[in-house]
């Protein structure tokens, strides 16, 4: 840290990632508020703690093995079958601790850990009001620290083999994270079954009213805020991407080392949000839940290519993805009796897969990866199976993005989610007994949720007044 430009670049990057972590915590504030609002009063505390505990649990697993997977698996199995245990992100590494020779690894780890917690929280809401806490924790560990991490290593890293050989492009994790978490949720829901009373005897779905719709909407608003941090954490904020010896070219880059502008990303983020919200408002005929969720369906549908789209392209993709998610949610619910309490399968699963596939068409031909020392990206041998540009860089194609998106959604989401759900169910660990579900998962703590309404507050008032008189 003796050379001025290097020092400034390093310290700026360190501070940038630090702020993204702070912002991303709003996603968890939002998820907690949202799910608590959707839950009925008798399940509020269980819902809150189940979601909250995913934060430290996934975080610990990310410390122990999640981040190592992300670095170690980037070339595996195409570039080689061996896995390094000297990535710098093993839990015993001295780099992810106070170390004056490394100022980036810790904040970089934290950003990824927050991604993992987000993935686990996506699953959380759909399972509320009948899932055993322990079962959710095991599912959260899989989804948050393994399921999306291998796809990220392969297709969401400049050195990932899918990025280099398939030209896979998914800048803000539509397929890599959202589709994986959403489809894993669907796999678990198949075994979990609906809440008692969700479906009428003739199979007609019933609406289970949220205990506090205003927490739901404010929670979703919080998630919007957190998404700014999520987006920001997907960048390399400053890097010299020029070839060695050439005139320096300092820029922000996407996760693949390709130059982008935060200005363009900001426009696309907002237009996708606008498109999703307006469309959801219209198709749901002014339903507040869907209007806010529409912000997410729009964003997630456009996220795969929101680093490079025109804002109106982002808007159009957001509109299409939102209509699709809305229709698919109710069709799947009715057809397969899937009780997704918060619509996470539609919002994250369907939109994530849609976004990943669409980006392959919309960005067809654009260089998928740009190697540079500044972004620490090097090209492998024979990259670009589906095409390369004149400079030998792999290009984005529909084939690469369709293959990658399907492998992630089905291979790392749906299938393992189904197996995990089946396993937990067969061990009696998945669902609480009907009597507990009917009484409420908060059990003896139910009156503590709203003491003013349950009589607990009045009980103490009585004691206090009696003692004041004596």
């Amino acid at each position, binding site marked *: *840290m*003796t050379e001025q430009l290097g020092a400034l670049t390093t310290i700026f990057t360190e501070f940038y990632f630090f702020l993204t972590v702070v912002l991303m915590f709003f996603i968890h504030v939002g998820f907690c508020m949202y799910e608590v609002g959707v839950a009925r009063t008798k399940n509020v505390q269980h819902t809150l703690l189940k979601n909250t505990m995913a934060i430290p*649990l996934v975080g*610990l*697993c990310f*410390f*122990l093995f999640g981040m190592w997977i992300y670095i170690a698996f980037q070339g595996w199995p195409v570039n080689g079958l061996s896995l390094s245990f000297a990535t710098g992100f*093993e*839990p*015993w*590494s*001295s780099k992810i*601790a*106070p*170390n*004056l*020779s*490394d100022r980036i690894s810790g904040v970089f780890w934290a950003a990824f850990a927050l991604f993992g917690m987000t993935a686990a929280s996506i699953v959380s809401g759909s399972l509320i009001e009948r899932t*055993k*806490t*322990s079962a959710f*924790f*095991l599912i959260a560990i899989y989804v948050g620290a393994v399921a999306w991490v291998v796809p990220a290593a392969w297709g969401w890293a400049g050195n990932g083999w899918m990025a280099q050989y398939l030209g896979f492009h998914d800048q803000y994790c539509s397929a890599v994270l959202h589709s994986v978490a959403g489809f894993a949720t669907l796999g678990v829901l198949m075994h979990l079954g609906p809440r008692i009373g969700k479906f009428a005897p003739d199979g007609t779905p019933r609406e289970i009213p949220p205990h506090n719709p205003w927490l739901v909407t404010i929670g979703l608003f919080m998630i919007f805020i957190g998404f700014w941090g999520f987006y920001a954490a997907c960048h390399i904020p400053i890097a010299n991407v020029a070839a060695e010896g050439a005139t320096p070219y300092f820029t922000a880059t996407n996760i693949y080392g390709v130059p982008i502008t935060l200005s363009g990303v900001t426009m696309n983020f907002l237009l996708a949000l606008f498109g999703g919200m307006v469309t959801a408002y219209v198709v749901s005929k002014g339903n507040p839940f869907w209007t806010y969720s529409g912000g997410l369906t729009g964003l997630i549908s456009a996220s795969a290519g929101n680093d490079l789209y025109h804002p109106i392209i982002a808007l159009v993709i957001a509109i299409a993805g939102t209509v699709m998610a809305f229709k698919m949610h109710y069709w799947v619910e009715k057809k397969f009796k899937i009780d997704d309490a918060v619509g996470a399968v539609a919002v994250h699963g369907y939109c994530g897969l849609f976004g990943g596939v669409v980006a392959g068409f919309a960005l067809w031909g654009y260089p998928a990866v740009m190697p540079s020392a500044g972004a620490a990206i090097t090209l492998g041998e024979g990259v670009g199976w589906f095409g390369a540009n004149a400079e030998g860089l792999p290009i984005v194609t529909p084939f690469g993005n369709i293959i990658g998106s399907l492998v992630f959604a089905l291979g790392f989401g749906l299938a393992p989610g189904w197996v995990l759900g089946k396993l937990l169910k067969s061990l009696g*660990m998945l669902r*609480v*007994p009907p*009597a*507990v579900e009917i*009484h409420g998962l908060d*059990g*003896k703590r*139910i*009156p503590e949720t709203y003491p*003013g*309404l*349950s*009589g*607990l*507050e*009045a*009980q103490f*008032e*009585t004691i206090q007044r009696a003692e004041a008189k004596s």
Partner: protein
Amino acid sequence: MSTGVTSLANLAEMGAVYPFAGFEWLFTLIAAAFLVYFLVSQIKMEQGDIAHELEAPGAEVALAPAE
């Protein structure tokens, strides 16, 4: 506790500055044990809670009428 660091005279040469550098394998074992302990405790606690609920649902819920 000892960091082993007693001088800040040569910052460019410095690396790990935390106590017990070199014992990271032990730190890893502590973190792993803590995680396993939590998961086992959680499963036991939940089994107990559910069994209790099934025996006497809401038994400890004592409500007074709101004033």
